[in-house]
């Protein structure tokens, strides 16, 4: 159960090797979290992440989860929920893709869309159903500012996040009054392994800042979290900018 400050006792991470997710897990373990499930494709990185969190005093399990295999989500995640209540589900899986290559290879672009959007739809619905049955819990969805308005530079990734974002918002509305909170997190450019080598954008943050914002959002029971917070204003302006002008911006 969550305590009065929204700190969970159990956490399920979908995308168990995500740096943002692991930074969040560390913070939550420092508060109350004792049971952690890391879901992801079996890999040494996943095991290493589990071992690291165990070292911080949590009871960590890993579970095989493939975002692209939507058909398996119900069975895989159902098993996790059968073991006990999950206070927070953190959906942190996703791929950035390579815009230039993806434009050349439609199947590579589809893979981005399937991971970021289709996989999230099935996993999100399974988790939402389980959370609703237990009458409490939070579903934290890692979206992106890229989904707020498609840019020339990464519209394939951006469009998949736009779909995810709209899905999560609608899911949050659907779950209103059921005791389940859906929190959409929209970070800007985050310095992680995935973005290493990419040109850094203004208002860039690190995984720690995103994790801090997630923990604060859980405490405040927020519906939307921007990281950094100033992006809320910046994106509000960009969203309404006329396209001919937007196209010319050096973004």
């Amino acid at each position: 159960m969550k305590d009065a400050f929204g700190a969970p006792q159990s956490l399920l991470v979908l995308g168990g090797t995500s740096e943002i997710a692991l930074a969040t897990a560390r913070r939550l373990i420092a508060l109350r979290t004792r049971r952690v499930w890391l879901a992801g494709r079996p890999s040494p990185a996943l095991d290493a992440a589990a071992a690291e969190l165990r070292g911080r005093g949590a009871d960590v399990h890993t579970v095989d989860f493939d975002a692209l295999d939507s058909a398996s989500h119900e069975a895989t995640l159902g098993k996790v929920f059968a073991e006990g209540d999950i206070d927070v589900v953190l959906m942190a899986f996703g791929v950035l893709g390579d815009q230039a290559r993806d434009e050349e290879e439609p199947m590579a672009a589809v893979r981005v869309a399937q991971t970021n959007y289709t996989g999230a739809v099935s996993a999100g619905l399974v988790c939402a159903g389980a959370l609703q049955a237990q009458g409490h819990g939070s579903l934290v969805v890692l979206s992106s500012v890229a989904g707020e308005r498609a840019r020339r530079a990464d519209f394939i990734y951006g469009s998949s996040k736009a779909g995810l974002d709209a899905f999560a918002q609608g899911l949050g509305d659907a779950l209103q009054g059921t005791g389940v909170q859906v929190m959409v997190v929209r970070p800007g450019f985050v310095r992680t392994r995935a973005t290493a080598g990419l040109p850094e954008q203004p208002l860039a943050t690190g995984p720690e800042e995103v994790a801090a914002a997630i923990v604060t959002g859980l405490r405040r029971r927020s519906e939307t979290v921007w990281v950094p917070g100033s992006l809320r204003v910046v994106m509000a302006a960009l969203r309404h900018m006329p396209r001919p002008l937007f196209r010319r911006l050096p973004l």
Partner: protein
Amino acid sequence: MSVDTVSLTGWGRTAPTTAVRFRPRGDEEAAAVVRGRGPRGVIARGLGRSPGDAAQNAGGSVLDLSGLARIGGVDATAGVVRCDAGVSLERLLRVLLPLGWLPPVLPGTGRVTVGGAIASDLPGLDHRRAGSFTRHVSALELLTADGEVRTVLPGTTLFDATAGGLGLTGVVLGATLRLRRVTTGLMAVSTERAGDLDDLLARLTAGGDRLPYASAWVDLMARGRATGRGVLTRGEHATPDMRPAHAGRTRLSRRPGAAPGRSLLPGLPPLPGGLLGPAAALCNEVRYRGTPRARTGELRPVPAFFHASDALPDVRPLYGRGGLVRYRFTVGYGQEETLHRVVRRIAARRSPAVRAVLQRFGAADPGLLSFAAPGWSLELDLPAALPGLALFLDGVDEEVAAAGGRVCLAKDSRMRPETAAAMYPRLAEFRELRARLDPTGAFRSDLSRRLGL
């Protein structure tokens, strides 16, 4: 029986969860709910005044007993009443006072049901003399996991587990209470100001039991030499010869005017977060300075003495959207240094603490999870949205536990399960009894899940 799905919180408005709420109209309907419970179990709920998550059951059933509120069979000669669990202490007081009797234990609010008072084994303002609520229960009817109603008598293990058992041994449907005789409806009250915490503790101790009811308000925002200053209020039941002539008509009855159960003032608007600190400091300053240095023999009606806060408007909006956290702990006599440290720590944080009640407790009761134990008890309310409050209170927990003290489970909304187990050594016994009586876990609450009770 009405049934609806609702989002529930405790009085502190933190950690909402959703449950199916049943409002039975009789014992039989309540038993039907317990028999037909789902996999996530059921918990009883009264007036929802518990600040934490003791009367919530996420995804399960909540049995709202506030409708089962008959007062049956007042024996005005022997001073015994048999009443349903949903009767509030406020109403009991209203009914009994004209007959010359009082509910056995009166806490700081009358909006507590008899069932709730038993499930949290409430201590009153005269704990040193009277003990906690269940000490005055001569029998209770308990609806257990098998759907049967049992009469549970003091001295049995089941009684001790139910007293302060947070509703986890079953649903209390009714109880027989031994009452207290009074000759007037008035209290003779003395008020005095104490300049710091030492002074306050000394004054609380010095009075002894001559005036049985005693509690103090502590100014947790005062710092420096004034740290822990406060106002001590003590009272005793006025005897007929203490009554002034004009009070003749108020004998054993309420003054007309104040409608019971409802505040005369409108609700408060939410306060912008930044103003809370200065406003609280100002409020405390006014309260302290506004109290006479010492005043004795002031006569007040019984409800006004015990339940003064019930007449105030709902203060919760002032604590903001995040709700409020009530922290109540006790440390034994001889551990005054811990009390000092905690008060200093809170004062140093400059938290907007307006409500803070200091009491003395006497001998403990046999309840396995009963809170009151000989020593000092401090209870305070803080806005849950204060930055860093979670870790701060964890630190206070550790200090309290190290001093052999404990935090009140019925008010808790944030403790670590390990800490709770360390503070309540008889928890293992309680768990064992629950496992035996209720192997499928019929009675569960958010609190029991959170702390693994």
